[in-house]
């Protein structure tokens, strides 16, 4: 470990309702979105992460496959698992599908009691977290 560098830690709670592979995938996703895991950054091999977390290697492999399907990581035989750069151009079909998911989520939040102003503020805050960092680091590396 390079001196002075704070490692990014993934934490798993086995008593939580959320499946372990989802917990792993969610935290990696957030790390990438926040720029803590820049494009090209290697992720630990399945066996190492499974050993450190004390979980079945299939659970970690499932999390990595999910992230690969979502475009967050690349899995190569020789290079292992690496954080993928953001797509250079938005795919219209994918954007339409994600927009549908966002609409459903916003509807649920509205139904849960969030006022439109609160929703706007929340979205602005989240955008601030994920907006610049990953794009900048990806451009630097790609």
């Amino acid at each position, binding site marked *: 470990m390079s001196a002075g*560098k704070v490692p*990014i*830690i993934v934490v798993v709670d*086995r008593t939580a309702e959320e499946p372990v592979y989802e917990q792993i995938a969610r935290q990696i996703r957030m790390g990438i979105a926040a720029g803590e895991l820049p494009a090209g950054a290697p*992720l*630990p091999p399945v066996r190492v992460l499974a050993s*450190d*977390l*004390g979980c079945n290697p299939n659970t970690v492999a499932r999390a990595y496959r999910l992230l690969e399907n979502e475009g967050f990581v690349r899995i190569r035989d020789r290079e292992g698992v690496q954080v993928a750069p953001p797509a250079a151009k938005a795919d219209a079909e994918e954007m339409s599908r994600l927009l549908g998911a966002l609409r459903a989520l916003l509807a649920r939040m509205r139904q849960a009691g969030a006022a439109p102003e609160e929703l706007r503020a929340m979205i602005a805050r989240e955008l601030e977290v994920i907006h610049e960092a990953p794009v900048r680091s990806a451009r630097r590396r790609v």
Partner: protein
Amino acid sequence: MEAGSAVTALVVFEVLVTGGMFLLYPLIVRKGLLFGVYVGESACESDAARRITRSWYAWMIGAIVLSLASGLAGLAALPLPVAALAPVVLQLTAFVALYLRAYRRARALAPAGTPPAAAPLTVVPAPGTVLPKAALLFGACLGLWVMGYAWLHYPDLPARVPTHFGPSGRPDAWKPKSLSTVMLLPLMTLSMGVGLSAFARLTARAKRAIRLRDQGASLEAQVRFRAAMTNFLSGVSMLATTMLALMAATSIQVGLGRRPGLPPGVMALAIVLLVYVLGGVGYLAFRYGQGGARLERARADTPLTDGLADNRKWILGMFYVDPEDPSILVERRFGIGYTINFGNWKAILLLAVFAGIILGICAAALLAR
């Protein structure tokens, strides 16, 4: 030195070394652990925890004094091997009994609930993998060479071959030639060379138990400790293999009549190995602490994660059992170094193979006597 005073010195040495090691274990453990129980970083500094530790020191000092006294008294009354072993057996028994007592008391301080599991996503290259690879190659080559040397010279050996050497290096016991008597030492050389270096390689990949919210201090401590332990075990493997290979090759030369006895280098190597092992364990314990405990600056708000903190995965605080965990080696909770995951069939298989080889060699040695 007379034989009597040499045995007395040996008894005093073994009692003080083993007893001193047991006595000082509480000083080197990861913070939060108390006699094999995870009690939490705050509770391990409570008055109740201090009372358990003070009681351990008092009883262990008593056990050392008793072992020493009975060992010295036994020298006059018992035959030599029994007199030399009895104090160590007594001390081991006392250690197990006192540990179980302290463990039972510490259980009362254990917190309820399941601790979270955590792992670094930052890739840290596995340290210390060059030396164990070199040790494995060295052990395999030297072991195979000695096996080949013994095999090639087997037809030229006389009907009776030396099976034991006295303190002067001269043979003091001879037996009829057989494959088991001639191949025993070469086989031991190969097994130790490969087995110890394989263990060193596994140590470099052992499970890492880290702390939350400590800015990576525990991870760095783990990485450094594992590297030091791996290199230490590789050194033990190479020294032990060299000593055994030298013994194996020269005992064949003695059998062939080319040498009067073992060269003085064998005894010198044995002393170097002993000093290296004792000095190395002492250095690792007090420079790094168990699992890097002395480097990690643990605080009450930096709890250990589930590999070490989940009491349900540890039987008697000594045996880690988690079938879900793919780790083969995990850090010990009490003592120094690593233990196997008894819930992993690969770890059990490795243990069975290694124990089988050791027992086989011991059985062959007994048959050869």
